[in-house]
């Protein structure tokens, strides 16, 4: 699904990722853990194609094709999704309108018929129930006046609606109370399947109690210094990161 080979990347002439490799197969969930400034956000930004980042060496391949020259929307249309650490507030842009436009862009891309208002509403109401969200959400502007938890739920709602094959969850657990965390983890778990892959980026192993990754990678100074299974998260919880630093 995703193959990253010896990736060197950065921003403003500052190299942040210094030779990172990662391979995710269909159905797998990988977690990347690391401290602030280790390069976690850079990793998610270069996969999704945010402007301003450069890649000086290496490649990112998605379904066996290099995607580093693709604009962000092409990556999205081909099935890559990121749940943002800081979802953007868009005053005056209606949630329903936005989500419907995004879904129809994707359906268009895949040669499917666009949803009309009624069938979209039916679909979205089902997804809202899954995430225990109120229908008043539909009338609101994107993320405007949303609490931290509501914003994160909204990200997961978008994921469930757009049905990506590769979902990057960037600090999805930050700012969530325990109830919201459970609901969101539940939504993610239901979405897991043999065909869908996940890259979970997180500080803490809190979220990993509820969604169990197949692999965990520790990112320090732009490189993976250790990989392992879910037990590694517990070890990190206990010992911190310093024992891995050289």
């Amino acid at each position, binding site marked *: 699904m995703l193959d990253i080979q010896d990736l060197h990347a950065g921003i403003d002439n500052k190299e942040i990722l210094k030779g990172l490799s990662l391979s995710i197969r269909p159905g797998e969930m990988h977690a990347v853990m690391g401290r602030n400034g280790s390069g976690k956000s850079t990793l998610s930004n270069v996969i*999704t*194609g*945010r*402007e301003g980042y450069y890649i000086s060496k290496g490649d990112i391949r998605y379904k066996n094709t290099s995607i580093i020259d693709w*604009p*962000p*929307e092409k*990556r*999205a*249309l081909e099935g890559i*999704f*990121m749940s*943002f650490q800081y*979802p*953007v*507030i*868009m*005053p*005056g*842009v209606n949630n329903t309108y*936005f989500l419907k*436009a*995004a879904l129809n*862009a*994707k359906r268009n*891309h895949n040669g499917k018929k666009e949803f009309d208002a009624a069938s979209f509403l039916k679909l979205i109401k089902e997804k809202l129930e899954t995430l225990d969200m109120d229908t008043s959400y539909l009338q609101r*502007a994107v993320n405007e006046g949303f609490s931290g938890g509501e914003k994160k739920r909204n990200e997961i709602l*978008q994921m469930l609606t*757009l049905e990506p094959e590769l979902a990057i969850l960037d600090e999805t657990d930050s700012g969530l109370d325990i109830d919201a965390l459970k609901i969101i983890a539940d939504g993610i778990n239901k979405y897991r399947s043999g065909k869908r892959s996940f890259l979970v980026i997180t500080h803490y192993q809190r979220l990993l109690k509820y969604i169990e990754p197949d692999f965990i990678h520790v990112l320090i100074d732009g490189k993976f210094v250790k990989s392992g299974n879910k037990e590694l998260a517990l070890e990190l919880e206990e010992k911190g990161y310093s024992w891995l630093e050289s």
Partner: protein
Amino acid sequence: MSVTNFQSEFNKIMNCDYFSEKVQPIRKKAFTNFLKKGIPNKKWEQWRFTDLSPITNIDFHISDTNDAPNQDIDILKYGMIDIPTIVIYNGHYQEKLSSVPPEIKLLSCLDYMELKNWNVEQPKDSPFDLLNTALMDSGICLIADKNYQTKSAIRILFISSGTQHLISSPRVHIDLKDSSSMTIIEQHTGDSEEYFLNGSLVITLKNNSKLSHIRLQENSNKTINMGNIHVQQEEASHYTFHQFAYGSQLGRLNLHADLNGQGAECFLNGLTLTNNKQHIDNFVITSHNAPHCISSQNFKTVLQDHSTGVFNGRTIVSKDATKTDSSQVNKNLLLSTNALINSNPQLEIHTDDVKCSHGSTTGELDTNALFYIQSRGLDIISAKMLLIQGFASELISKISDKEIKNYLLNQFNSWLENNTKK
């Protein structure tokens, strides 16, 4: 227009025998005062950011009856076809094309002055009011009698047309008697070459009356649109103004609302869209002269290319206007690094015990938001359009009449398609 040019046009109108003689001294007084004041220049505080050379560079001529259309005008192309309309073509009232609901009194302005025994105060805030009085066309006046409630909006359609460099000086009086209500659409349109439209609109709102006033400024890109609006509000009267300005090469709104009666409410809104080398200046004053009045100014501008704009808003709270509640917001979106806006929100408060706020923001499209939208599968053009729509939607959604709103949305969306670039 040079002084000689103004003088010769003034002489022409003084010699028109179809106007009542009684209007002559009014014109003369205004013209003398106009010459004394002169055309504003950038040294005038209120005109600092607006270059009036498009007015002074060309000799404009007053319209005579030859400039009235000699064939039927197709007004369907100006949209909103179900709304009763008064058509003013190059300053000439088109009776055959016009209709108003029977409950509304429609007079020429000169008849209105006759009705008032020539005891009508002439607007004189700016030199352009004086010029309007000096050169005014026969004009129109709408009166809503006591308790009359409007069922449909009424449109006044100003069509500016032709290549003969006309100056047109429409005068409109709108009087709402006690507890009446009305919705007026003032639409400025047409395909004219260089043209100077200098209109004055005088609105009087008696106790408990309610006027919703929508102004669509969609003149050709060679037109100068000078809009002078005066609102006098009595007790518990309610005035809402919505301007949508996307036309003209040079547009200036001079709006002055006086809240003279207790409990009056005045809400001024404007959405301005500019491109190429357009310049649109909104100069709005709300004067609180009585207690317990509520007002707001909410103006937004979207600027593309080398276009420029001004927001100059002032809220004045006099010493008698206790318990005033006012807000003032100006937000501007620059789509090009060459576009420029001057924003100057001002509060002038002469009493305590008031609630007043003001603020202004100017910025470009948020790159984080653009990336967010792109990451959901929409291309950069769609992302920009979505954000600009979001920026403007607050003002468009305030229009409740479906026909007007649909017309506006169409105009807005076509502007957006033509002005959203990579």
